[in-house]
C-alpha cells in the first residue's frame, strides 16, 4: 500500500461540514462570557455602598475569624521514619533494667520494663537478696507517678520558674553571705553517696547538721537499741528463722519497716510443701485490724495500754524464767486475771521457742521498745532472728534531732534550711508551728517532686528527678548496696539532691560520675570478687545491687539497767477512745497520695478506696447508734477532724483508728476524675480524705501515733467507696446462715493428720459428655495458695499496670464499677469481735465450661485451644449477658469512656494491650500477651517452653509467691503437682464450670 490515505475523524456533522458557526465556536470553546458587565450594570449592585470603613470591618472580621478558627487544636499527625535508629534498641521490644524501688525506703530490688524508651512496668528483681522478686503495690505504682502531669518540671524561685544557672548562682552567693547555721532536713536517705554529698556540703559550715525524720517514725526502735545495746540502728528481722512470732501493733506484712522482705521471710517460715512442713505460730496483739493481724494464727484484741501491760508482764515472766532479777522489772505491777493469763501463755510459747522466736512492736515508744529488746534478749533472739551485727538502714529517722531542729528554727538559729524528700508542713503534728518557724529562716530550699505543702512555703524549690529517671544507690542493710539506673531521659528540667548540693559546692560533674566516684572510692574496695572497678560497676548496674564485705561491729552487752516498766495511762472516762494512727498499704505516710492507682486500690482489710475514715468496732457502732458512712467529729481536746465511720469487725471496742497520709494538697484534682454526668455525685473540690497527722503527739523525745479522743455525731453522711459490701462468707442468718465453701481452711493439727482436711467437699460432678474437648497442646492453669496469700494487694496494681486497667474515680467505685481485673476477696468469720480473716484473690477463672461463652450472641468471648477464656474487645457489643452469667463475677464493663486522650499519664500504657472503649466488656486474660511473647521467644530459640518461662503479672511480683501459673498438661510443671495436692480445690467445682484457676486450702497454726 503505497498511498497513505489520511483518515479524517469527525465528531459532528458540523465539524465535518466545518460550518462558520462551528469555526466560531471552536475558537471560543467556553463561549459564555462572565456576566460581570451585567452585574456591574445592575443598579442595586452599584447602590450597595461599601464604605472603606465597612470594608475594613469585614476584612478585619474575616482575619480575626480565620485566626480564631486556626486556634482550634488540629490533630498533628507526624510519621517520621527512624532514620538514625538508636543503638541497641529495637522498637517494639521490651528491655528490662535492674534498679531499686524508691516507693519507700525499704529498697526492694526492681526490674523496670521499658518499651520504646519509656518504662511501663515495674517488677520485682528475683536476684535481689532482700525482696527476692517480690514487690508491693506501692512499688508497682511508682511507674505511674513518673508520668504524673503535676510533677514539678522547673526550679521555682518565690513561685516563679527560673533556670538552674540563675538558681545555682543565687544559692551559692547567698550561702556565702549567710555563712553558718545551715541545716538539711530530709526523710530517711538510704543512698550513701547522697549522704556523703550532704556531709560534704555541710562540712563547709559551722553549726550545721543533717536531720532525718520519718513521718511515721521508727525512731524509738533505734533509740531503744542505742540504750540497750549502745548502737543506734534498726535491727534486721529474720521472720524466716522464727517459729513463734509475736507482734504487738506491728503491721509487718503491710507497712512496717520492710513489708516485702518480711512477707518473703514470713512465708518462708510457713511453707507446707517442705519436709517436715513448716508453719510458724503468729500471734498478733492489736487494737485495730491490720493486714498482719488478719493473717495471724491468733489475734488478741487489746488497747495500746493493755498491750503494753501484757508486754511488761511478758517481760517479767520471761525474766523470771531466764533467772534474771533486774530490779526495775520486778517493780512492775502485776496484772489482773485475763491479761496475766495471756502473758503467761505467750511467755510459755516464746520460751519454748528460744532463739527461734521474735517479738516485734510497732509503737514508736522507746520504753516499750526497750522492753521488746529485753524480751528478744532473754529469748536469745539477738544474732538469730534479730540481727544487730548487720543492721538495717532502711529507716533512720531521729525524732529527737527533729525536735532540736524545730527548737533552733523557733529560736532563729537557723540561717538556711534545705528540705529534701520530706514534707514537714504536712506531716508534722503541728504544721502551723513549723510554718511559722520557717518564716524566720532567711533561706529555705525545698527539693520536691510536687509543689506540695512544704514546697509551697519555701523560697526556692528544686524539682527532683523521679527515681526511674535517676542514678542512685542505697545501702539497705549492712553490706548490701542497691543501685538505681535511669530508665528514661529526664522528662523535666530536674536534678537529684546529690547533684544540686555538689554543684553548689562547685562540683559540676554529672550525677552519674559523682555516684561512680563514690562507689569507686568507698564500695569497690570492700569487695574482692572483681578486679577492675569498671567490671564491678557494670556487674552491679546489671544486677541492680552489690554485696560487699559488711563492716561488722561488736555488739556491746545488753544493758539491763536501761529497761524500766513503762508508765501506763489507761483510758479513764467511758467517753475516751484510744486512737491508733496507721498507714494504709497504698498511700503509706502520704507520699503516694498523688497516685490514682494507689488511691483506688481497695484497702486490703476494709476494701475502701479513695478516702480515709474512722474505723470502729461493730459493738461500738451499735452502742453509739452510728451507721457506716456517718460522719463523726473526732477530737483530742485541741484538734478536731470530721471523718466518715467504717465499721471494722475485729477491732477493739475502745479503739478507733484513722489512716494518715490523706488530705494532701494537690489531690483535689482527683475530684475531676471519672465520668461526668447528671448523677455524678462529687461536686465539691476537696482533697482526698483528711489529714490525721495533727493527732500525732510528741511524747518526750518520740512522736506517738496513739492518742485519746472523744467522738461526737455531726449528722452528715458520706458514703464510702467500697469494693466489697458483704463481708462474710456466711450468708445472713435469716437467709439460711450457711457458710459457703469458696474459701477453705483447716488447722495445722488436722492438716498433719489428713492433708485433705478442710477440703472434703466431694460433690458428684456429672458429665453429659465425656471430655468434650481434648487439650492437646498447652492447657494453662493457675493455682493460688491461700496459705501464702497475705492479701497485700500487690497483684492488683501489678495487673492494673500490665493490662492498662483504667482508674474510674470515687463516684464510680461507689456505684460498684471498679475495673480491677483481679480482686482480693476478704471474708470474716467467727464472732464480730474475734474474727478470723480469709483473703482470696479472684480473677477470671478461665472455665473450660465457661458460662460466659455460650451466652454471648456475637462470639466476643470464646475459648482458646489452650484453655484461655478470651475476650475480643472489638467484637463486643456490650450485652453484659456474659457478666450476668459469670458465677465468679469477674467481668468488668466499661460503663463510660474511662480513658482520656492526650494525657501525659497515658505514657504508662502497655502498648501490647489495647485500651478498651466504652460499652465493652473486659476481664483477666491470663496475661495472654506474656504467653504469646514467651511462646514466640521459645520458638525463636528453638526449644520448648519451660515451666516458669511465663510469669503472669500477678504471679511475678507476689511477695508471698502465692500464685503459680503453668501448663497443666506438663506433668513436671509446678502447677500439675499443685493440682494433685490434697489442699487443691476449685471454686464451685460441683457446678462443673471446670475453672482452670484453683486454690489451696489455708492452714492455720491452731489447735
Amino acid at each position, binding site marked *: 500500500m503505497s498511498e497513505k490515505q489520511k483518515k479524517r475523524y469527525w465528531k459532528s456533522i458540523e465539524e465535518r461540514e466545518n460550518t462558520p458557526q462551528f469555526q466560531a465556536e471552536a475558537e471560543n470553546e467556553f463561549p459564555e462570557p462572565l456576566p460581570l458587565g451585567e452585574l456591574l450594570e445592575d443598579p442595586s449592585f452599584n447602590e450597595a455602598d461599601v464604605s472603606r470603613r465597612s470594608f475594613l470591618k469585614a476584612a478585619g472580621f474575616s482575619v480575626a475569624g480565620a485566626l480564631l478558627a486556626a486556634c482550634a487544636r488540629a490533630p498533628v499527625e507526624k510519621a517520621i521514619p527512624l532514620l538514625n535508629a538508636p543503638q541497641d534498641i529495637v522498637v517494639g521490644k521490651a528491655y528490662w533494667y535492674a534498679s531499686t524501688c524508691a516507693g519507700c525506703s525499704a529498697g526492694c530490688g526492681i526490674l523496670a520494663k521499658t518499651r520504646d524508651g519509656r518504662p511501663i512496668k515495674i517488677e520485682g528483681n528475683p536476684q535481689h537478696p532482700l525482696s527476692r522478686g517480690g514487690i508491693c503495690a506501692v512499688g508497682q505504682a511508682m511507674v505511674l507517678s513518673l508520668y504524673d502531669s503535676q510533677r514539678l518540671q522547673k526550679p521555682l524561685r518565690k513561685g516563679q520558674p527560673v533556670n538552674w544557672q540563675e538558681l545555682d548562682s543565687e544559692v551559692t552567693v547567698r550561702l556565702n553571705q549567710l555563712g553558718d547555721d545551715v541545716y538539711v532536713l530530709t526523710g530517711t536517705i538510704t543512698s550513701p553517696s547522697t549522704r556523703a554529698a550532704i556531709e560534704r556540703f555541710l562540712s563547709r559550715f559551722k553549726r550545721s547538721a543533717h536531720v532525718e525524720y520519718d513521718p511515721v517514725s521508727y525512731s524509738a526502735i533505734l533509740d531503744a537499741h542505742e540504750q540497750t545495746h549502745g548502737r543506734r540502728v534498726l535491727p534486721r528481722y529474720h521472720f524466716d528463722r522464727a517459729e513463734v512470732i509475736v507482734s504487738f501493733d506491728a503491721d509487718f506484712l503491710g507497712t512496717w519497716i520492710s513489708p516485702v522482705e518480711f512477707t518473703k521471710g514470713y512465708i518462708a517460715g510457713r511453707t507446707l510443701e517442705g519436709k517436715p512442713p513448716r508453719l510458724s505460730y503468729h500471734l498478733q496483739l492489736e487494737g485495730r485490724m491490720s493486714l498482719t493481724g488478719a493473717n495471724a494464727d491468733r489475734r488478741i484484741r487489746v488497747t495500746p495500754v493493755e498491750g503494753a501491760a501484757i508486754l511488761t508482764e511478758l517481760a517479767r515472766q520471761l525474766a523470771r524464767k531466764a533467772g534474771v532479777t533486774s530490779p526495775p522489772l520486778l517493780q512492775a505491777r502485776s496484772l489482773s486475771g485475763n491479761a496475766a493469763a495471756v502473758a503467761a501463755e505467750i511467755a510459755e510459747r516464746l520460751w519454748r521457742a528460744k532463739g527461734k522466736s521474735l517479738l516485734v512492736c510497732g509503737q514508736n515508744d522507746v520504753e516499750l521498745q526497750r522492753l521488746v529488746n529485753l524480751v528478744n534478749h532473754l529469748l536469745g533472739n539477738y544474732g538469730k532472728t534479730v540481727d544487730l551485727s548487720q543492721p538495717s538502714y532502711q529507716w533512720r529517722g531521729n525524732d529527737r534531732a527533729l525536735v532540736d531542729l524545730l527548737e533552733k528554727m523557733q529560736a532563729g538559729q537557723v540561717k538556711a534550711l534545705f528540705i529534701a524528700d520530706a514534707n514537714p508542713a504536712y506531716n508534722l503534728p503541728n504544721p502551723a508551728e513549723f510554718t511559722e518557724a520557717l518564716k524566720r529562716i532567711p533561706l529555705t530550699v525545698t527539693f520536691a517532686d510536687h509543689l506540695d505543702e512544704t514546697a509551697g512555703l519555701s523560697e526556692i524549690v528544686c524539682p527532683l528527678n523521679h527515681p526511674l529517671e535517676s542514678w542512685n544507690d542505697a545501702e539497705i542493710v549492712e553490706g548490701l548496696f542497691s543501685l538505681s539506673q535511669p530508665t528514661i531521659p529526664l522528662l523535666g528540667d530536674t536534678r537529684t539532691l546529690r547533684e544540686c548540693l555538689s554543684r553548689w559546692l562547685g562540683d559540676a560533674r554529672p550525677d552519674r560520675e559523682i555516684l561512680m566516684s563514690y562507689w569507686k572510692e568507698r564500695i569497690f574496695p570492700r569487695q574482692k570478687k572483681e578486679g577492675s572497678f569498671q567490671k564491678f560497676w557494670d556487674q552491679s548496674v546489671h544486677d541492680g545491687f552489690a554485696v560487699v564485705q559488711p563492716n561488722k561491729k561488736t555488739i556491746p552487752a545488753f544493758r539491763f539497767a536501761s529497761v524500766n516498766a513503762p508508765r501506763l495511762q489507761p483510758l479513764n472516762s467511758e467517753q475516751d477512745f484510744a486512737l491508733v494512727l496507721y498507714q494504709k498499704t497504698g498511700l503509706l505516710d502520704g507520699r503516694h497520695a498523688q497516685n490514682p492507682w494507689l488511691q483506688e486500690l481497695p484497702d486490703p482489710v476494709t476494701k475502701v478506696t479513695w478516702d480515709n475514715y474512722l474505723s470502729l468496732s461493730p459493738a461500738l457502732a451499735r452502742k453509739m447508734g452510728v451507721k457506716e458512712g456517718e460522719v463523726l467529729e473526732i477530737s483530742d481536746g485541741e484538734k478536731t477532724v470530721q471523718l466518715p465511720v467504717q465499721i471494722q469487725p475485729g477491732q477493739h471496742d475502745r479503739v478507733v483508728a484513722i489512716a494518715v497520709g490523706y488530705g494532701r494538697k494537690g489531690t483535689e484534682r482527683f475530684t475531676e476524675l471519672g*465520668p461526668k454526668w447528671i448523677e455524678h455525685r462529687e461536686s465539691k473540690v476537696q482533697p482526698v480524705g483528711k489529714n490525721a497527722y495533727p493527732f500525732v503527739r510528741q511524747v518526750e523525745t518520740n512522736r506517738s501515733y496513739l492518742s485519746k479522743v472523744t467522738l461526737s455525731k455531726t449528722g452528715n453522711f458520706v458514703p464510702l467507696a467500697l469494693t466489697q459490701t458483704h463481708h462474710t462468707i456466711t450468708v445472713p442468718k435469716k437467709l439460711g446462715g450457711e457458710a459457703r465453701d469458696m474459701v477453705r481452711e483447716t488447722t495445722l493439727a488436722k492438716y498433719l493428720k489428713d492433708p485433705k482436711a478442710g477440703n472434703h467437699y466431694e460433690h458428684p460432678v456429672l458429665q453429659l459428655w465425656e471430655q468434650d474437648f481434648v487439650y492437646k497442646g498447652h492447657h494453662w492453669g493457675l493455682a493460688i495458695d491461700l496459705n501464702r496469700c497475705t492479701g497485700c494487694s500487690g497483684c492488683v496494681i501489678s495487673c492494673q499496670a500490665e493490662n492498662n486497667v483504667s482508674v474510674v474515680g470515687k463516684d464510680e467505685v461507689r456505684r*460498684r464499677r471498679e475495673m480491677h481485673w483481679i480482686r482480693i476477696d476478704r471474708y470474716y468469720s467467727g464472732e464480730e469481735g474475734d474474727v478470723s480473716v480469709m483473703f482470696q484473690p479472684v480473677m477470671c477463672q478461665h472455665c473450660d465450661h465457661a458460662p460466659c461463652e455460650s451466652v454471648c450472641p456475637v462470639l466476643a468471648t470464646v475459648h482458646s485451644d489452650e484453655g484461655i477464656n478470651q475476650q475480643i474487645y472489638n467484637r463486643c457489643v456490650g450485652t453484659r*449477658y456474659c457478666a450476668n452469667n459469670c458465677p465468679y463475677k469477674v467481668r468488668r464493663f466499661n460503663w463510660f469512656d474511662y480513658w482520656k486522650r492526650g494525657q501525659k499519664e497515658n505514657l504508662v500504657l502497655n502498648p501490647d494491650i489495647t485500651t478498651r472503649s466504652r460499652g465493652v466488656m473486659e476481664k483477666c486474660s491470663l496475661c495472654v500477651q506474656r504467653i504469646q511473647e514467651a511462646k514466640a521467644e521459645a520458638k525463636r530459640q528453638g526449644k520448648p517452653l519451660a515451666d516458669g518461662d511465663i510469669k503472669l503479672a500477678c504471679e511475678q511480683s507476689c511477695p508471698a509467691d502465692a500464685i503459680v501459673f503453668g501448663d497443666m498438661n506438663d506433668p513436671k510443671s509446678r502447677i500439675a503437682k499443685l493440682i494433685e495436692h490434697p489442699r487443691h480445690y476449685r471454686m464451685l467445682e460441683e457446678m462443673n464450670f471446670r475453672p482452670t484457676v484453683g486454690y489451696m486450702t489455708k492452714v492455720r497454726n491452731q489447735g
Partner: protein
Amino acid sequence: MSMHFSVLRKPIIHGEKTLAQVTTDVARPLETRPTILWWVAFLTSFSVLVIGVAAVTYQIMTGIGTWGLNKTVGWAFDITNFVFWVGIGHAGTLISAILFLFRQRWRTSINRSAEAMTIFAVMCAGIFPLIHLGRPWLFFWIAPYPNMRGPLWVNFRSPLLWDFFAISTYFTISLVFWYIGLMPDMATLRDRAKSKIKKAVYAFMSFGWDGSTRTWQRYETVYLLLAALATPLVLSVHSIVSMDFATSVIPGWHSTIFPPYFVAGAVFSGFAMVLTLMIIARKVLNYEEYITIDHIEKMCKIVLVTGGIVALSYLIEIFMAWYSVNEYERFVFLNRALGPYAWAFWTMITCNVLIPQLLWFKKIRRSLVIVFIISIFVNIGMWFERFVIIVTSLHRDFLPSSWVMYKPTIIEIATLAGSFGLFFTCFLLFVRFIPFIAIGEVKGVLNYGKNK
C-alpha cells in the same frame, strides 16, 4: 321481625344492631373531630414519649453508666421492661389466633384493638434489647448475615440470638396478621370516606378490596392459615425470652419451669392490659354494646386461670428450691422473700397472686371499677415479677464478695416512662385512624344466639 333469643346462648353484641349500625358505630370516632379528652391523653403520652427519647439519647451519647447497673447487676430495668412489654404483647395474638382457632366468637369485639396493643407492646419491647447494648450502634452484629469482617458469625448457642429471631418473627407475623384482618375494614372506610385523600389512602391500604365472594373466600383462607402460623409463636416467643434466664447458670434463673411459667405470665399480663385498655375504650368510644360486660367477664376468667398458673409456678419454684437441696437455689428464694428486695417480692405476690383471687366472684368480675383496679395491679405485679427475677437473682449470687445493691437512676425511670409514652401515643393514634373493632368480623357474630 321480632327477635327470639336462645336460652343457651346470649347474644355477643347487644343493642340489636343492624349491619349498617355496626359500620356507623365503629367508624364514628374516625369520622369525627377528636375530643378534648383525646387531645389531653395524646399530648400527655407524647410528652412522656419525648422525655423517654431524651433519656435514651442522653444514655446513648454518654454511656450505659447513666443507668444504675454495676459489676454484679448487669441487667435490671432494661430487660425487666423488655420482658414486661413482650408479655403484654401476648394477649393480642392469643385472642386473634388461638381464640379464633378455638371458635371463640366473642373475640371479634376485642381482637383488633388487642392486636394493635400487641404490635405497640412489641415495638416498646424491641427498643430495650437495642438500647441496652454497650455499643448500640453495632446492634446489627447480632444478625447473622454474610459480612466482610472475616469469618465472623453469630453464636447460635446464645439465647439472645434466639430472642432476636423470636421477637422479629413474632412482630412480623403479628403485623401481617393484623393487617390482613384490617383489609376489609379499610375497604369499608374507603367507601365511606368523603375527602379524596382519605379515600386514596384507605383505598391503597385496602389493597383493592372488592368485597366479592372470591375475595372473602381468599381472605378467610389466609386468615386461617396465619392464625395457625401465629399460634405456635404465642407460645414460642415468651418461651424463648424465658430461656435468656433458664439457660444461664445463675440461681433463680436456671430453672426448667421458666418457659410455661413465662408464657402463662405473659398471657396473664397481656389480658390485664387488654382489660385496662378496653374498660376505658368502651366507655370513651361508646362501644359498650360491642364490648359488653360479658366480654370483660370472660377476660377476667382468663386472667384468673393464667394467674393461677403463675401462682402455681411460684410455688413450684419455691418447692424446687427447697427440694433440690441446692444451697444457692435455696438462698435465692429466701433472699427474695426476706432479703433487701423483699418489698419487690411481696409487691409481686400481692399483685399477682392475692389480688386476682377476687376474680373468683362473679360480682367482682362484672364490676368494671374493681376489674379495672385489679387489672392495674396485675400490670404492676407482672412488671415486678420480672424485676424480682432479674435483680434479686443477680445481686446476690454465688460469691458473697460480689453481692451488691441496685438502684435505678432517673435515666432508667425516664426510659421506662418513655416506653409507656410510646405505647399510649401509638394506641391513641390507632384509635383515631383505624377501626377499633373489626367491622367485618363483628358483623359475622351479630346473629349469634338469635333465633330468627
